[in-house]
Every structure is written in C-alpha cells, then in structure tokens.
C-alpha cells in the first residue's frame, strides 16, 4: 500500500535536484542589487572612502553570516580573525612583500589556520562557553598585539604599510578610488564563492546542523568536521576583510582586535538578517548610513543610538521583523505582477 504511493527514487532525485537548482539560481532581485552597487561605485567617486569601508564591513559581516547564520555558532570574538588578517597583511607589505593579492591570500590562510586551531575550542560546550571562548581568544590576541610592540607597534599601531599596485597595474591613491574598486571586486569574488558554498550539499548540511545538530548527526552528517570546516572558512573571510582594511588604509591599529569590532559586526549582521548572505551586505550599508547619520546629529554619542537600535530590534523580535519584511516584499511583488518564485534566470 505504502510502497505504491511512494514515487520512484529516481523521480524524487530529479525533482529534488530541480528544487535545489531553482534555489541556487540567480534571482532578479540579486542581479538588480549588484548592478545597483556597481552603479553607485561608478557614479559616486567622491564617496570612495566610505564605499571602501562599507565593502570591507560587508565582507566581514558575510564571514560572520557563514558561521552564525549558516552554522549557528554564536561568536563574540570574530574580530580575532579580522585582526589577524589585518596584521599579517600589514606586516607583509612592511617587510617587502608588497603585492596586495598575494597579501590577501596569505592573510586568509593565516586567519584560516587560526580559525582551524581555535575551532576545536569553540566546538566544545554550548552557547555560553562558545561566547566566552571566542571572546577570550580575541582578547588574548589583543594582548599579544599590544605586548609585542616590537613587531606590531603596540598601542601606536603598525605604521609604514605600503602595498604595491593591485595586480601590478593600479596604484593606491589618496582619494580611495583604487581602494574602493579593489575592495568591491574582492567582495564580489568572495561573495560568489560563499554563494556557491552555501548552495552546495556542504552548505545544506550546515543548515541542518544549525537547525538540529542531533538529527543532523543521526542522518550521517559529520557534525564536528563540518563545523570545523565552516569556522575555518569564516575565519579566512574575516582575515581577507582585515587584510583589505590594512592595505587600503595603510595602517593597522590595535582596535582591529577590539571587542567593539566584534560587537559591531554582530549588529551589522542582525540589522541585515542572518542566513541569506545578503544580510551582511545590506546590514553594512544600513549600519554605515546609521553611523553617519547619528554622527552628524551627535558626533560623540552616536554609539548610544546604535545601542538603542540594538535593544529595540531585539525587543521588537527580530525574527518576526524579518518575516514581516519578507511578507511585505512578496506582497509588493505580487501587486507588481512579479512571481518571486519564478524569477530565477538560470534554471
């Protein structure tokens, strides 16, 4: 009886494949987003420095999204990897290796190695232990960078960072033109890789771990190994973001390891929403706009309002807000006669 009602395994497989292919295909809204971002980059050269900052923050938030949004690991010390990347990239250019892309790669590798090493600490214990361990690791790195003043410049910061021209062609200028295009290009590339990762079977297994680790383990997903892998990948992403900051601002200060940086990136991701990759990007834009706006109203006390937004977001139940936003969007879309589900262009 039951067997008769079940569809053929092969048919299930093809229909599943179709579902996943449609999920992974590019939506119109995504294409519009990137074209819009590219246009802003082109038509607004006077705000290059700001665009550069946003791109770096977006990449940083993207890296946290991989860890928090997809794998469900709560981290209070994500700045550890950002700072590692920044110092590695800074020290490399200072000591002769001035090619920026090579610097990015080495910074990413170092941050990934640190992520790999600390992931075993993070995997033990529940939320609270994770919070404390990630926070502790970041604080330890802060202390190391502070004490090893001979290498890092300590509290004075690392000076004399002078990266060579990007790809040997485009030199960094003081207006941040090259910097913004460079950061933006890196962001797009890293985003494409992240998109591929999250749509792969690996990414799907991460989501199942996030939603229910026990069940994920029961269907044969190697939970610990997957978490180690994604934590290292996230660390590499954060390292690249840090390296970009070091190269484009040509300075590294201790605050790359600061607790406030870890907290800020958490806020960025929460504003944008977790678990759909664009959260970090939208959040970065919103956060910078907010910071800019509050800073013009109260130059010294913008942090108060950032905190206020955070408290308000949590009290207003951010999950509900996200659902409301989604409903609103599909409502508008249906009014406009667009079917969000059928908007895929790749399938």
């Amino acid at each position: 009886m039951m067997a008769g009602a079940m569809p053929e395994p092969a048919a299930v497989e093809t229909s599943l494949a179709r579902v996943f292919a449609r999920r992974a295909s590019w939506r119109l809204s995504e294409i519009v987003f990137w074209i819009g971002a590219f246009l802003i980059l082109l038509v607004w050269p006077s705000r290059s420095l700001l665009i550069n900052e946003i791109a770096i923050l977006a990449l940083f938030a993207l890296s946290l999204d991989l860890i928090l949004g997809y794998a469900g690991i709560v981290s209070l010390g994500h700045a550890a990897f950002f700072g590692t990347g920044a110092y590695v990239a800074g020290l490399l250019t200072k000591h002769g290796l001035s090619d920026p892309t090579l610097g990015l790669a080495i910074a990413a590798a170092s941050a990934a190695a640190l992520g790999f090493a600390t992931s075993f600490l993070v995997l033990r214990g529940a939320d609270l232990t994770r919070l404390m361990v990630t926070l502790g690791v970041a604080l330890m790195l802060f202390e190391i960078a502070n004490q090893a003043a001979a290498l890092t410049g300590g509290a004075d910061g690392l000076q004399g960072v002078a990266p060579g021209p990007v790809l040997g062609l485009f030199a960094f200028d003081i207006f941040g033109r090259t910097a913004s295009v460079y950061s933006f290009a890196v962001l797009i590339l890293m985003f494409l890789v992240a998109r591929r990762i999250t749509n792969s079977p690996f990414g799907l297994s991460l989501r199942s771990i996030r939603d229910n680790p026990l069940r994920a383990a029961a269907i044969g997903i190697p939970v610990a190994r997957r978490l180690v892998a994604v934590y290292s990948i996230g660390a590499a992403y954060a390292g690249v973001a840090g390296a970009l900051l070091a190269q484009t601002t040509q300075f590294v200060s201790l605050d790359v390891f600061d607790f406030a940086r870890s907290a800020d990136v958490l806020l960025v991701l929460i504003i944008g929403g977790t678990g759909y990759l664009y959260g970090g990007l939208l959040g970065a834009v919103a956060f910078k706009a907010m910071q800019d706006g509050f800073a013009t109203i109260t130059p010294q006390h913008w942090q108060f309002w950032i905190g206020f937004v955070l408290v308000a977001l949590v009290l207003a139940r951010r999950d509900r807000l996200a659902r409301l936003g989604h409903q609103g969007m599909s409502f508008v879309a249906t009014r406009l006669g667009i079917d969000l589900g059928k908007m895929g262009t790749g399938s």
Partner: protein
Amino acid sequence: MLTILFDGVAYGMLLFVLACGLAVTLGLMNFVNLAHGVFAMAGGYVTVILMERLGVPFLATLPLAFLAAALLGLVLERLLYRHLYGRSHLDQVLFSIGLVFMAVSATDYFMGSEQRIIKLPVFLQSRVEWAGVSIGIYRSLIIVICGVLVVALQAVLTRTRFGARLRAAVDDARVARGLGIDVTTIFAVTFAIGSGLAGLGGALGAEILGLDPNFPLKFMIYFLIVVTVGGTSSITGPFLASLILGIADVAGKYYVPAFGAFVIYSVMILVLILRPQGLFARPR
C-alpha cells in the same frame, strides 16, 4: 609577598561582590547579561555624585549606591529584561550589548569621559604594619564588608524561605509556579539585589578599579570569568574563583607585567575547555 596576597584577596573579594549578581542571573536564571557592569558603574557614579555635589561622607554613600543600583536593576528588569528570559542566547547577548553601548554613551554625556577619582576619608587611607605585612586600612575594610556579605548571601540562599523559593524557581519555574511560588516577583527581587550588590561593589571599588564610562566593557570579561570559572551551582564556587582571579591578577601584574592579562585569559580558556561546567561545580 604577603602584601600582594593581601591586596589580591581584597581585589578578589571586590570582584565577588561585583559579580555575584551575575552568578545568579547568568548561572541560575540562565540569562546572558553582558550589561552587569552597568549597575556597578551606576553605583560608582552615585558615590561620586553624592560626595562631590552633596558632600555626603564616603561610608554613608555605600548603602545609597546599593539602593540606587538595585532600583535601576528593578526598573530595567520590569521594563526590559523580563521580556527576554525565554529567548535565545544570541538575543540576550545583542540586547545586553545594546544596553552597554547606551550606558557607556549616556554616562559619557552626563558625567564626562575622564576617570573619576574618589577621595577616601583620611582614616581609610593609611596603612598599618602588622607582623611584617603592610596592610591598607581601606583594603581590610573591603575584605570585612565583602566577607560579611558572602556569609550573609550563603545564609540567605540556604537557610531562609526566600532562598529555598529562589532555588526552586530556578530549578523548575513551571513546577514552582504550580506550587504557588511567585516566580516573577522572586526573579525581580533577586535581579534587583544582584544589581544592588554590583552597585555597592562599584562604589567600593571605584578607588581600586578606577571609574570611567568604559567601566562596563573593561570589566565585563572579569565578571564573566568569575561566573563561568566558578560554576554556578553555589555561592562558594564564584567566591573561590574571584579570590583566585584577584590574587592571580594582582600577582601577575606585579611579577610579570609583560604578560598583562594574557595569563588570565589563557587560564579561563583552559578551564572552559577542561571543565565547561566550572571549576567548583559538579556536572549536572
């Protein structure tokens, strides 16, 4: 050597008074409250204001610091915190970080960003030589006050009706409610007392720890260490943890200043890895 030990003990006692409120909210009520230092800072600033503006003597400001911080705790608990008891840890972390940011900025706005120094009365400033050990009067006062508090807290938790109710409410809020225990009020009162103790600690410690608007951020990690390392099943766990932390911190800063806080963080991570439930707690 013994002087360092003595200062370390005083420092540890102080940390315990500051952090024991967090031991209850974080450990017993399972609420990740990163904003605990805000209450301590409030207590410290109450003392500063009372002494500077109104000329109240230092010792008389201490109970007022306790009351003010407890009141602040009660108001915030009733208005904000109680909505978040059942929520995810991430939400609680975000919420309390937001509170810290607001408190830091607001304090900066109202009180100025510079470090505030509390001028202790003369009779507390002296040191006495006793059996070859130089003992600061103020630090002995801290040890006495904190020691009395530890004993009192332990007695309240284990010997009184309120303590029994609190433990019941924490173990299983549902069943406790079913037995007619007013869990909501108990949590609110406990939260207020914890905040008040933090305020008292902030007032007592302003001279030793320093007081500026970044206080909640600077000492957040210390409070968390006390609670996570000490475990949360009793008062004695966090108490011993604060003593160890205090002595280690003072001794570390004295003997190996180059390592700074590095030693403490590594010990904390080690403890968390080896005994996630805390050093002095039995695994549940």
